[in-house]
């Protein structure tokens, strides 16, 4: 008793001091805000003092472009070869020769590819998976999205191996050299994952032109980090005994790495591969803006023309492709994790890999048949469906019948919630924000975090982007807040009912797989363009981690503690509020952190539907190919993410340390 009493006493004193400090700090900021007329430079960053970082970057890029074009051109040429091959093979047909005498080698027949998808599913996951994967491909074919989908798939099929190899080597390097991990790899990974995808597109566009190659490079940059992380994690998790064994067997350093450590880490590596595939798909869709083509481009064109039906169709095809690729790669990863099962060795390829040989045979036969029977070469128009008119009719019906309700909802939301908040955020003194965030950093972790947070916040102001930064913060903040408000209760319910969890899990799994683009389409249909659309799409996208982490956090509370609570006579309510919730709090906070980061990523993409924030800034820069402007805005976005992430992580770490 005395111990706890004295402990709480020593705890309460700093807490009270901090309360006082915060009250003073807020008061100071309020005073600054009220004295706007006297101290305008403290509220709005003076335009005259803006540091022209954007111009510097533009100049640098120009220099690179004019002096290193031989390098970029040769990279384009080299990477173009396998990429063209894949695109020709899957989507475009090979053309040999020129003009009228050109001889055309057909692409793979759609029938063959569907059959191969079916067999691949069968090999790694049995009948259920084969139906799902084969069904997804068939869906794409029948709904008339075949060529676009195969363009997307072709890009992925080249980008993914590239990412895997690069990621593997970077991961090995970081694992071998701790200084490299600490000084180079970790910061680079953080930045690669927080800079919005749009922002990479601009330098790629400048250096490599509007082509599938630049889309592929952007994809590679975006999708490599999980492979690096998986490699580092997998290698560090190999049991030390296996490490010792390889030494005792007399392995050289190379034999040890390639024949012992990496194969032992294969299950973790496969999880990395799955993530690489999904991120690559996501990015290929976004990279359609700089010439990737494929499904993303279809969505983009349709959205620009406000052809909601077409956008929806292409969007659903993306969903189908995403689900097929995700389930397939997950099944492979799962199979790896479970380990091998012995089978009789058989000398013939046919016996060992019946499905593989069958798939190859079918592909060859159907493709050759395609030379004579056009139905095998291209999906015949007669058997394709189009749902575009249906979607259009549905939207029309909704707008005709519910226009007033939706509009009233939208306007009420804008007038009562969004606009006041926006005004508050945009008017917030930049100096005050730097000060308050620095203070928070100091309280949560110490001087270093305080300096980091303050410096990153100041960057946004100093580069003259303060107002747009705050516009982003406002929209991201409100979306993340509502996402948590929805997600955490769902997560809590899922943690308390197995049946509910069974319903929720597949839904959030699917939500997580979908490329961010897809969330915008249905919302645009109903709410047209604007902040409300951006907010709703962001909430839908960002709600997943809030649900997942809350559920996981509550469920991972050790059963022994719950039993202890029950034995000491807690009611279920008390058990929940006084045992489970406090113990799960760090995990839930981690979910909130993820939600914020995902909301930030989505808000930027929502610039497509007309928000006025940093995303718009990047978007404008993209259309003008103004690399300096785009990169600075991209860095500002990344810094918002890093500030939020570091503060939340510090808080979570503190809470975890307290729980022991």
């Amino acid at each position, binding site marked *: 008793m005395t111990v706890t009493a004295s402990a709480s006493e020593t705890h309460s004193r700093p807490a009270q001091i901090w309360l006082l400090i915060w009250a003073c700090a807020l008061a100071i900021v309020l005073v600054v805000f009220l004295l706007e007329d006297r101290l305008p430079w403290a509220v709005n960053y003076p335009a005259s003092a803006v540091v022209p970082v954007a111009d510097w970057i533009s100049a640098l890029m120009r220099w690179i472009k004019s002096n290193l074009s031989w390098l970029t051109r040769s990279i384009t040429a080299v990477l173009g070869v396998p990429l063209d091959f894949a695109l020709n093979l899957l989507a475009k047909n090979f053309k040999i020769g020129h003009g009228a005498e050109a001889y055309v080698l057909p692409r793979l027949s759609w029938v063959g590819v569907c059959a191969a998808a079916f067999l691949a599913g069968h090999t790694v996951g049995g009948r259920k998976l084969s139906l799902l994967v084969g069904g997804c491909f068939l869906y794409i074919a029948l709904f008339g999205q075949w060529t676009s989908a195969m363009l997307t798939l072709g890009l992925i099929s080249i980008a993914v191996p590239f990412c895997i190899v690069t990621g593997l080597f970077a991961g090995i390097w970081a694992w071998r050299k701790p200084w490299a991990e600490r000084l180079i790899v970790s910061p680079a990974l953080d930045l690669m994952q927080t800079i919005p995808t749009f922002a990479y597109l601009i330098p790629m566009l400048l250096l490599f032109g509007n082509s599938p190659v630049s889309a592929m490079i952007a994809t590679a940059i975006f999708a490599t980090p999980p492979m690096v992380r998986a490699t580092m994690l997998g290698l560090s998790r190999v*049991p030390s005994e296996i490490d*010792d064994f390889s030494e005792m*067997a007399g392995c050289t350093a190379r034999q040890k790495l390639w*024949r012992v450590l990496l194969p032992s880490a*294969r299950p973790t590596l496969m999880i990395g591969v799955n993530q690489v595939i999904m991120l690559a798909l996501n990015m290929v869709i976004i990279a359609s803006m700089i010439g990737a083509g494929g499904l993303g481009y279809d969505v983009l064109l349709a959205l620009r023309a406000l052809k909601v039906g077409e956008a929806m169709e292409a969007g659903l095809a993306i969903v189908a492709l995403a689900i097929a690729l995700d389930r397939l790669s997950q099944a492979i990863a799962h199979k790896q994790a479970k380990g091998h099962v012995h089978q009789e060795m058989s000398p013939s390829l046919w016996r060992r890999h019946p499905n593989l040989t069958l798939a190859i045979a079918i592909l060859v036969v159907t493709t050759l048949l395609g030379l004579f029977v056009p139905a095998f070469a291209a999906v015949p128009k007669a058997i394709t469906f189009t749902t575009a008119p249906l979607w259009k009719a549905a939207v029309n019906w909704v707008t005709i019948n519910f226009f007033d309700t939706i509009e009233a909802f939208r306007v009420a939301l804008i007038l009562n919630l969004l606009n006041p908040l926006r005004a508050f955020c945009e008017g917030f003194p930049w100096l005050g924000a730097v000060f308050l965030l620095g203070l928070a950093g100091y309280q949560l972790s110490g001087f270093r975090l305080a300096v980091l947070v303050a410096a990153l916040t100041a960057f946004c102001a100093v580069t003259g982007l303060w107002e747009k930064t705050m516009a982003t913060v406002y929209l991201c903040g409100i979306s993340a807040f509502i996402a948590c408000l929805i997600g955490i209760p769902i997560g809590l319910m899922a943690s308390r009912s197995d049946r509910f969890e069974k319903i929720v899990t597949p839904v959030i799994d699917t939500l997580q797989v979908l490329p961010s683009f897809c969330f915008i389409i249905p919302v645009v249909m109903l709410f047209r363009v604007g902040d409300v659309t951006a907010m709703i799409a962001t909430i839908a996208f960002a709600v997943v981690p809030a649900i997942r982490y809350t559920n996981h956090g509550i469920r991972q509370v050790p059963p022994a503690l719950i039993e202890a609570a029950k034995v000491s006579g807690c009611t279920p309510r008390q058990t929940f509020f006084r045992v489970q919730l406090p113990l799960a709090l760090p995990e839930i906070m981690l979910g909130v952190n993820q939600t914020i980061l995902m909301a930030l990523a989505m808000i930027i993409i929502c610039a497509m539907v007309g928000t006025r924030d940093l995303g718009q800034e990047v978007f404008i820069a993209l259309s003008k190919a103004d690399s300096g402007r785009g990169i600075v805005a991209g860095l500002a976005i990344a810094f918002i993410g890093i500030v939020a992430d570091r503060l939340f992580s510090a808080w979570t770490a503190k809470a975890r340390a307290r729980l022991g």
Partner: protein
Amino acid sequence: MSDKTEQEPIVAGTPKDVRPIKLACRNVWKLFGSNATSFIRERDGKASMADVTAAGLVGAVRAVDLEIRQGEIFIIMGLSGSGKSTLVRCMSRLVEPTHGKVEFEGKDLLKISDAALIELRRHRMGMVFQNFALLPHLNVLENIAFPLSIQGQDRPTREARAREVIELVGLRGREHFYPRELSGGQQQRVGIARSLATKPEIWFLDEPFSALDPLIRREMQDELMRLQTMLHKTIVFITHDFDEAIRLADRIAIMKDGEVIQIGTPEELVVNPATDYVAEFTRDVDRAKVISARSLMRACDGSEHGGTIAPDAKIASFSAGIVAANKPFAVVNGTGKPIGEVTPQAVIDLLAGIDRSRAGA
């Protein structure tokens, strides 16, 4: 301290071991912490536990001296954290000792080149691990052939050798199973087979049976003894289980806090524990199975003998006979000459746990 036990056998009349020394540790230290090397070098390889702690270092292995002879089963026994695993890793240079010498057939292991070390490990050392350390992506045959394939042997040669050892450890028919499809005992058989595939001269077994159920553990101990009677390897065996040590050992080194506190045959440890710590371990041991006739022997007083026994015969092997005969047995050496006798009373006292020499004093 350990030198003394090495030179003069505790139990009188034990013949001196004349087998060549295979592996020796000479004042081996392993310290963790900053400046550990300079710390021990400055003190010329001598430091007390207090010195080590005061310098902020952790002494995992301290001043270990021991000699392992060719063909013996040498057991390093200690509780967790006593440094036994670190010590065996120092012997194979998986862990680089901070100070001292590890001699393999008289050559300092710590001075040889990396290439020579790899060569040594490939052909002359084998190791078995507590958690088996099998490669999950290879089947039994491939796992066992792995050390040979590392050496660059071609597939038919290495698979032929792998099949030989599979036969030896009784795993025939499981060649194409993957590790996770096998039970713990079977997995460790694979581990043993793998370490034997290269025909090593010295065989390190790091708590090989600790992860197994008691019954299986017993079976595997018998298996090990069976293999040893065929193969005559020099074995360094780590365990935390004193009963296991007693069952298998030619000699046992007992470790505590990184130090070897006593080295001796099981009988020596039981009859003459160096410290209370050792005595604590030996207290519950079934003495009749450990103590030999030599320890109970006294000079013949001319009475009639009911039978003859060898000096190395364990008490348990003749206790029933001697009690039934109710006459002393003569202890005879290899040439049949009596060197002493064991009385029924001495055997009964031992079985009953009465120590007459001390009780009488």
